[in-house]
């Protein structure tokens, strides 16, 4: 088992490395000149070269990539000038390992930017996850056991509605009616737990998290319904019924155990993707999470920030994959005992 985990992690690391390389290559292949962005509109040729040099974009791509990887492993200084560091250490910013880069635009390390934004995204993602899992699985099972009934059709119909409306529409709709017009909810503004306690944190998260959860919930209702229906036609369900087990025991012990296993994979990957920021939701609600950070960085062509966030998102997904695979070993004895 341990060997398996170690092997998976090694493969994950290799994947991450490849991901950074691809990200670098992609950005430098684009026709936009990042130096021009940094330098501003009225910028002479000379100033642009200067800016390019200051930002480190004059070096070949592989060297920049090498520096980046080195920074992740041991940390790095910005600017990386030992003389300057000796002469005036206060102008040099040291970025601890794992260093994701330095955003000249914000004059902060990417690590600091991420550190500020991540709790917002994580809060959103966690609350949304709880909402969509509870709602999705519950309504999915309900629809499955009442298959063909009014209830089933109603639930399935509602999921279609949730699918059909784009997230930004739902977000704006909630804002306009719940917060502005009827004022049944406060206008959401991210409040951390340290600032306002759990209640305020939660209250402010309700609306954006629900917006985010809605479309996932719709998907999970349908998946749960399909998986439960499928597992209830398995031969071992017939065996369980033939033993004389009570209907609810057949469903909850024998049926759900198998039906919900594939959901583990979905949850892991969906959650990992959300951790890296929900771009639309964060934008509409002006939540300063990773999603919003990405949007702003893209608009300004803030390359280090973009790369940092992409790597972070990638590592979330890879990590989630490993966790999902390992958890399978605990769920399914056929995996564990081969």
């Amino acid at each position: 088992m341990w060997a398996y985990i170690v092997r998976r992690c090694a493969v994950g690391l290799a994947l991450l490395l490849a991901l950074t390389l691809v990200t670098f290559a992609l950005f430098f292949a684009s026709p936009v000149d990042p130096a021009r962005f940094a330098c501003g509109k009225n910028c002479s040729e000379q100033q642009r070269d200067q800016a390019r040099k200051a930002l480190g974009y004059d070096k070949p791509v592989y060297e920049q990539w090498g520096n980046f990887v080195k920074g992740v492993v041991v940390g790095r200084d910005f600017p990386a000038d030992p003389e300057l560091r000796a002469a005036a250490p206060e102008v040099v910013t040291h970025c601890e390992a794992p260093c994701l880069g330095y955003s000249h635009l914000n004059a902060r390390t990417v690590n600091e930017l991420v550190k500020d934004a991540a709790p917002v995204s994580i809060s959103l993602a966690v609350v949304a996850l709880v909402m969509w899992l509870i709602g999705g699985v519950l309504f999915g099972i309900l629809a499955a056991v009442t298959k063909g009934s009014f209830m089933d059709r109603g639930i399935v119909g509602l999921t279609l509605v949730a699918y059909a409306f784009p997230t930004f529409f739902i977000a704006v709709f909630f804002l306009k009616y719940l917060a502005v017009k009827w004022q049944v909810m406060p206008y959401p503004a991210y409040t951390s737990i340290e600032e306002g306690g759990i209640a305020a944190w939660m209250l402010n998260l309700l609306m954006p998290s629900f917006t985010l959860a809605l479309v996932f919930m719709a998907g999970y209702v349908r998946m749960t319904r399909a998986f439960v229906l499928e597992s209830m036609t398995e031969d071992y369900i017939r065996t369980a019924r033939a033993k004389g087990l009570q209907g609810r025991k057949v469903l909850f012990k024998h049926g759900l155990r198998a039906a919900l296993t594939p959901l583990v994979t979905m949850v892991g990957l969906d959650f990992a993707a959300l951790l890296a920021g929900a771009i639309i939701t964060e934008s509409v609600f002006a939540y300063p999470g990773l999603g919003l950070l990405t949007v702003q960085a893209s608009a300004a062509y803030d390359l280090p920030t973009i790369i940092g966030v992409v790597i972070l998102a990638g590592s979330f997904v890879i990590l989630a994959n490993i966790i999902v695979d390992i958890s399978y070993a605990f769920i399914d004895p056929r995996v564990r005992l081969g």
Partner: protein
Amino acid sequence: MTDQTIPTMGADTSSTVATPAGEPILEVDNLRMYFPIKSGGLIRRTVGHVQAVDGVSFQVPVGGALGLVGESGCGKSTTGRVITRLYKPTGGAIRFDGRDIGNLKPRALKPFRRDIQMIFQDPYTSLNPRHTVGSIIGAPLAIHNLVPKKQILSRVQELLEVVGLNPEHYNRYPHEFSGGQRQRIGIARALTLQPKLLVADEPVSALDVSIQAQVVNLLQDIQREFGVAFLFIAHDLAVVRHFCPEIAVMYLGKIVEIGERDRIYRHANHPYTQALLSAVPDVKQAAIGGRRERIRLEGDVPSPINPPSGCRFRTRCPLAQEICARQEPPLLQIGPRHKVACHFAGELGQHPFKPVTARLLGVDDQGNPDPGAGPPTELFTQPGFADTWFDIKGRSSVEP
């Protein structure tokens, strides 16, 4: 609608194909197929092998039929797959039409792929549900570029007629046919390229009894009409007996007994063959005189990863003695067309008390090396049969 479409031919097939004249179309010589098992460690080393097929030799005559029987896990299906070169064999030779195709590269194999076709067990999963019957049957023609595009359809219709389906149905999809009809489609597809050898892997075991007979008859008609040779792999001993004049019985990757139909079914000399035959429920026997005495085999087939030493059947064999653990019994020819791999070979109830093979192997009756016994006898180990054989009762070589 099905059985009547092909005129019955009066000739007795078994007698015509049983004659071992001429070169065999297929000769398998000491074929081995091992699948590696990887360790679960950090570096995935190969820690062992599943010895699915371990030293199998046989011949299939031109236009003839060899039956391969045995229980699940005995390696009969793997043997079929290696011969069609779905796998690359670990060792040994597969001589098709005189040429060893065991080590050919995919490109060099292509012409042979035409000559060796496979019929699969499950008519429900082996046909692509999104393709029409016409395109399934016609695909091999297009791939091998054999017939001009315009003629493909007429060839497909011809084949549909041969297998007893309505030629007008070429535009239908597999799900519109019943299980038996789908197996006919699978057979038509296999016939498209006019192969010389058909490897039929459990071709009728997924079908209902009444349909099984239709398909077996169809296969016999095809064999007669097109002169195709068959390697007929099945677990149903009665079907194999009906179809094949020669039968090989496999156990745990090895052939334990091979020979003419009557030698195997009436004069089986290997205890496994005898147990297998006695386990088959027989309507007639039960209906008239109660059931025959069954030889009970205890336990399960051992793992092919770590097969027992010596004779692989010894862990379940009622006759097993010390020599069986020490010495692997050679596949010894004991009749004109009959070979058996057992130290105590003999017909049911007439097994000898002392191993018949001891002297041939140069060992004593317990299987220990015996300096007094003289050197081991040179045994005939080729596929097929020799002109002389070893008489187990007289314990000496016999010439006809």
